[in-house]
């Protein structure tokens, strides 16, 4: 009967470990993609690099033409040609998923909060415009400022630059009208940074505002960074995150000494910086764009999804204070064992490890002093375990074998044996139990966790229980040690 119970116990524990291993595997985050050279993995496992191409920003304008709408065609053929060339070069590359400007527009407008933001911005803009025309400049400024902020939050300047820029232009004009020239300059410059090739009808604005517009455009053209036409790295990282792409291609046109120059920057969302840039004369775009993009792509690792890299060998060590009472013991009152235990978990696979532990214990006397001497023992446990991770916590279930070397273990319920010693004539020898130097073998199970404290240091907690089966006639008096261990560890 006892053997059947023991077998059922072991089977239950084994099933628990297997179940935990499965659960831990399911909860395990996807393997981090590692840079690999193309030949390391099969093509089916390679994940394309996602690149969004933002509309070309055209700085090929002159402040003198600001109020000459006829000086600029409806669409600049130079900018269009550069954009087409960039898209063609990226489409021709392997393992690249290209998001064209149209796709960018759809992605941004399809974002959960985009429609609401754009509608709110448009409403604020219309109200601000009406207030401005109604000569309520102060209230108009508030509304237009709100509109500009909402447009910027929705990245409207990427897919509808005119709407976004108009809010800034009207804000700037309202500020200039209110005598706040410096703030107006900033707003007007922001408007031109979103739509630098904007033109206005003559006499549309009063002279002061017209001058401010011209000054702002002049300032922008002299200070603009052609590699960041849509804002700084932080804003670009947010945009890439919103688009779900790894890279952004930012292109702008500006004047060069010998003709227009296309500045092309590749922004990495992962690195949060421009990782490749080129300044190419427009007439050389056809010849020099493809080599530039090829050089960049050659340096960008191809992510893999289906193949996880081999798990590096990890060893989790710890040393703990241990409390180990026995559930089955010959003394009338419980005696406790205290000691130290240490060991290591060697990771074999992502969620499977081998463990080994050594514990050294000494006893605390029981209440009736039935344990005649201090009881020392050494314990070795080893086996396999399943582990999982949740944030800074690594948790595990272990199942293995336990070998327990008992030191001097002598008990008696006779008080004369306790006071006078076991050799005294009054001591009843029949009351003595001596398990000295016996080795018990059995099954061992443990659960626990290791909390990552920082760097590679850990706080470790482990609860365990063992059940001894061998020797067959020697486990009925002292058996089933529990274990509670608390200590610190280090991950190697």
């Amino acid at each position: 009967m006892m053997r059947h119970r023991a077998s059922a116990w072991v089977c239950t524990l084994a099933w628990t470990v297997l179940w935990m291993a499965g659960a831990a595997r399911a909860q395990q985050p996807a393997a981090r993609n590692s840079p690999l050279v193309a030949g390391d993995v099969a093509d089916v496992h390679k994940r394309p690099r996602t690149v969004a191409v933002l509309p070309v920003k055209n700085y090929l304008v002159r402040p003198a033409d600001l109020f000459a709408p006829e000086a600029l065609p409806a669409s600049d053929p130079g900018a269009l040609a550069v954009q087409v060339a960039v898209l063609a070069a990226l489409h021709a590359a392997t393992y690249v998923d290209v998001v064209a400007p149209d796709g960018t527009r759809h992605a941004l407008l399809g974002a959960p909060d985009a429609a609401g933001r754009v509608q709110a911005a448009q409403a604020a803009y219309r109200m601000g415009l009406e207030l401005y025309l109604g000569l309520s400049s102060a209230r108009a400024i508030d509304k237009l400022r709100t509109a500009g902020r909402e447009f910027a939050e929705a990245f409207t300047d990427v897919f509808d630059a005119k709407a976004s820029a108009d809010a800034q232009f009207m804000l700037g004009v309202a500020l200039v009208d209110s005598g706040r020239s410096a703030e107006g300059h900033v707003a007007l410059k922001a408007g031109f940074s979103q739509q630098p090739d904007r033109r206005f009808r003559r006499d549309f604005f009063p002279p002061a505002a017209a001058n401010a517009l011209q000054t702002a455009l002049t300032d922008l053209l002299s200070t603009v960074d052609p590699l960041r036409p849509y804002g700084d790295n932080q804003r670009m990282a947010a945009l890439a995150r919103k688009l779900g792409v790894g890279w952004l291609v930012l292109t702008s046109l500006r004047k060069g000494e010998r003709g227009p120059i296309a500045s092309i920057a590749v922004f990495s969302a992962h690195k949060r910086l421009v990782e490749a840039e080129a300044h190419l004369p427009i007439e050389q775009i056809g010849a020099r764009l493809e080599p530039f993009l090829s050089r960049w792509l050659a340096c960008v690792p191809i992510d893999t999804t289906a193949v996880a890299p081999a798990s590096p060998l990890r060893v989790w060590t710890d040393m703990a204070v241990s409390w180990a009472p026995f559930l089955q013991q010959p003394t009338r009152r419980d005696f406790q064992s205290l000691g130290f235990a240490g060991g290591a978990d060697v990771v074999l696979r992502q969620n499977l490890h081998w463990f080994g532990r050594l514990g050294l214990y000494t006893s605390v006397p029981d209440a009736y002093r039935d344990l005649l001497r201090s009881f020392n023992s050494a314990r070795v446990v080893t086996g396999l375990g399943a582990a999982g991770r949740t944030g800074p916590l690594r948790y595990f279930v272990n199942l293995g074998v336990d070998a327990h070397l008992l030191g001097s273990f002598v008990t008696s319920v006779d008080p004369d044996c306790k006071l006078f010693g076991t050799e005294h004539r009054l001591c009843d020898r029949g009351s003595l139990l001596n398990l000295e130097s016996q080795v018990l073998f059995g099954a061992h199970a443990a659960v626990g966790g290791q909390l990552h404290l920082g760097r590679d240091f850990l706080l470790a907690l482990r609860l365990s229980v063992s059940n001894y089966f061998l020797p067959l006639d020697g486990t009925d008096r002292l058996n089933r040690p529990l274990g509670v261990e608390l200590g610190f560890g280090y991950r190697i």
Partner: protein
Amino acid sequence: MKPLRPVALGPCIGWVLCVAASAATACAGEADLGGTWRGLAQLGPEGGDLVHGSEGGPVALELVIGEYGPDVAGLLRFFRGDSWLRARSAEAPDRECGCSLLHGGRVDASTAQAAFTLQGCLPGAADRARVRARGSLRRTTSGAVLVITVDEPGSPLHKRSSTIALEQTGGPGDIALADLACPTALPTGNTASGQ
């Protein structure tokens, strides 16, 4: 996540271990009678005349007792002269009634009292014959009181008793091996020497 500070955990671990150890050892409900007790058997109406020296002088007693949960074990020694209370050098009051072992000792923790039996002669007894006596040790505010009552039908000492006030001179941890020497009883029930 804010990492835990190891310095704060050390005392906690120690505290937990202390509590565990204390719970294991200190919650036994003992009467706290273990140790070494000494006293002088007074003669006369108050103390009774069961125990006295062969010359009729006072007898000093030493009770060495070990308490183990509900059980006690120990021995009772008799010495001559009150000077022994200050210097353990006096001879036994009767060379053949120096020591008796306690048997069947039990503790009633609720009354802080231990009861046991003694098998042997008592100093000053008329015939120095082996008698069976019941002993009880009860804790008091200033020490303990030992009552010895002869329970030997047929003996002239039957039902006679002595009450001796004791003071504790050593705790349970102070009992040395030498304190437990009690020579083998002779067929008469007496011991071979007073040591």
